């Protein structure tokens, strides 16, 4: 017997309550998990979700983690609406970081004010380029972008590993796989004393506003959405399917590349193998949790950042394994997908 039956109309209420249900279910299941590990659920919950927000330093760290997530998710949401599934933002982030970091290394010692802008532009180009490869493969050879973007992520990781082990390795770095620390001129300026919050936040703020306007009003966003929802209608209207593919992948690569620059010219301050704690993948969850909406993504990005912070706190205070962050991310996605089924369906009432 089927438990679900389709609704006549998709439920708008459910569309926005589904993320809340997913968050609630994640918290509940998380508590059970703590309990099963012999930790007090309430105390663990406090450590995980409340304590990080009790200090202004905690809030600043939240901002630092939320910014790249939000930035990447904005770009991904464009493609997801068009049903172009870029799941390789992590790789595009890395290539963006490599391009931006490369500029920093190349211009080491320069005191020009153009170093940071040059790094930003280079990072955007690097990310966009890494997104353009799957676009070319899809439009030219019809290669599935879900596979090519993911595979290119591993190529990017190896590329990064090669660069920091070889040409760009810090000669005084005790053979660690990392570049030189960037000079202040190649770092975003700090905004708040005593924190790591820097001016790259303006890139994210600008992106949120730009994508919000783009989604709400632009004709291109409309054509992308039509292409995702009804490909035959898109062909009928004469919208180019190839343009959709190129635009979706290049723009999401570009935002991921910018996020990469934000990391290496921000909290990380160099090229090393730990540029990103999986922001590119977590941003996929952020995009869907935020309902592919520019402002929804902001809220979802903050929540995801809190899970990162809570995961770190849980490792320190509760001696939890580092996998705890991934477990919470996974639960969130899992419950979200489950709750999303109720947008188009409802429980069948017993006859």
């Amino acid at each position: 017997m089927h438990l679900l039956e389709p609704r006549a109309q998709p439920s708008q209420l459910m569309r926005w309550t589904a993320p809340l249900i997913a968050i609630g279910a994640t918290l509940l299941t998380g508590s059970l998990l703590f309990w099963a590990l012999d930790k007090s659920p309430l105390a663990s919950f406090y450590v995980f979700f409340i304590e990080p927000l009790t200090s202004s330093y905690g809030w600043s760290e939240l901002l630092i983690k939320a910014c790249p997530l939000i930035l990447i998710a904005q770009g991904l949401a464009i493609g997801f609406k068009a049903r172009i599934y870029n799941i390789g933002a992590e790789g595009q982030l890395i290539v963006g970081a490599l391009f931006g970091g490369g500029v920093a290394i190349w211009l080491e010692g320069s005191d020009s004010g153009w170093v940071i802008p040059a790094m930003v532009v280079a990072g955007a180009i690097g990310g966009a380029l890494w997104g353009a490869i799957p676009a070319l493969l899809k439009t030219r050879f019809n290669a599935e972008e879900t596979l090519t973007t993911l595979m290119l992520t591993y190529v990017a990781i190896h590329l990064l590993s090669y660069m920091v082990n070889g040409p760009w390795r810090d000669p005084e770095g005790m053979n660690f796989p990392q570049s030189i620390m960037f000079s202040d001129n190649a770092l975003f300026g700090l905004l708040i004393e005593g924190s790591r919050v820097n001016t790259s936040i303006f890139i994210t703020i600008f992106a949120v506003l730009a994508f919000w306007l783009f989604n709400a009003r632009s004709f291109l966003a409309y054509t992308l959405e039509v292409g995702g929802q009804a490909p035959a209608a898109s062909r009928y209207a004469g919208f180019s399917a190839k343009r959709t593919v190129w635009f979706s992948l290049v723009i999401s690569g570009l935002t991921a590349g910018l996020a990469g620059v934000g990391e290496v010219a921000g909290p990380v301050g160099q090229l090393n193998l730990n540029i990103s704690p999986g922001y590119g993948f977590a941003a996929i969850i952020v995009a869907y949790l935020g309902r592919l909406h520019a402002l929804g993504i902001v809220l979802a990005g903050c929540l995801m950042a809190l899970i990162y912070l809570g995961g770190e706190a849980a490792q320190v205070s509760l001696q939890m394994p580092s996998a705890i962050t991934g477990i919470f991310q996974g639960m969130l996605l899992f419950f979200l997908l489950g709750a999303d089924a109720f947008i188009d369906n409802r429980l069948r009432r017993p006859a």
Partner: protein
Amino acid sequence: MSQSARLQLLHISKRYPSVVANDDVSLSVEPGEIHAILGENGAGKSTLMKIIYGAVKADAGEMLWNGRQVAIASPAQARKLGIGMVFQHFSLFETLSVVENIALVLDEPFDLPALAARVKEVSERYGLPLDPYRSVHSLSVGERQRVEIVRCLLQDPKLLILDEPTSVLTPQAVQKLFETLRRLASEGVSILYISHKLHEIKSLCDSATIMRGGKVTGTAIPRDETPASLARMMIGRELPVCEAPAFTGLVKPVLEVDRLSLASADPFGTSLSHVSLTVNAGEILGIAGISGNGQAELLAALSGENTVDRETIWLAGEAIGHLDAGQRRSKGLVFVPEERLGRGAVPAQSLTRNALLTAHRQDMKHWGLVSYSKAKAFAEQCIARFDVRCGGPDALARSLSGGNLQKFIVGREIMLAPRLMIVAQPTWGVDVGAAAFLRQTLLDLSRTGVAILVISEELEELFEISDRIAVLAAGQLSAAQPKAATNAESVGLQMSGLFNETAQPTESGHAPA
């Protein structure tokens, strides 16, 4: 109400949040009776049929099956009782073959080769030939319907519900289907027959229940009525008659197709072979034929969804074969496709956003940004001018009935002030009132100097509105004849692939499917 009734409905009501679909509906069907349900779109026929088939649950009322009260909770239970239904919108899996699709709905273990043989046998016995191993995605609309009918027949139904079954058949095939249905009736099968084709109901059905606005407004013995009197009962007023005044403007060719040959991308599609035609300003050219004979390919080539050689298609003297759909639209070509949901309109989007789909050229965007207020005004105007019954410009396209969505799409395209309009199946599944309105709208538009090409499977319709008629069969187009110089019989024969007047020999090996 006799004791022997196969199916009896007593005081059935079904209320949806915004509309009462069925209000105190009662009817009775005897074994072996062919019973028509007549009514406009939105009269509640489909809801009633879904209640009988267990797909929708009634709020109130009783249902008696062979004299015993039943509550049918699901289609599976309905099938078990012996109720089969052929839906207007098919429920087939495109990636599976005919026999696999049929196996899926049989509530019993099956043996595919044996079932295939049975499919072949039953389909041939009832004059609905089918290749059991063909994939459904390659079948035409007409062939898909055959699959639906055959899969009902395999379950040995006692009551068969048919929702507009003849809209995709040639006159000859309709006669064949009627023979099938009469044979089934003589074997004791009851048939509930939904159709808008009044002359068919008159010739086929023993009795009729007429519905309007969710209520039963009358019953009739169709043999004793005329199509006009049936139409009056159904829509509550006289059926308008289309007027086709002579065109007085300058007659010049607008669309010219010059020996268009096109291999179909679909392995089961029909390739076009040397199709040539001309549509003049101020006239309607009708193209008759059963879908699957190159209609889809010709439409895609004309609309620009598939581009072809530059010099095979000309619009007002300009070669446009190489231009895509958007570029051709910018030159004054508009198109109403057969599939309204998913092609002519985006199902999950509002009418305002669906107006934007093709009307964005009407000064609706500046600097890449859309003026949604202009799109909304356009949609409102379209709704008002073409009498689209809906919840306003914010209503989702998929919430509209087929006829109303068609009015919206036709209206949207007309409001683009075209030079050439291409329309496929203008009134497929549209009720008589709306169909008459749409036909008159097309006629009026053509008399303003617009060239119109109509591809339809409904001969009656083509004879009503066309100035000239050609037939597309097996990927070849016959020479267009003035309406007065031809008749339904000869067009019907050409539709079956027997070109009697055109001397063009068949080059390709494509037999009519």
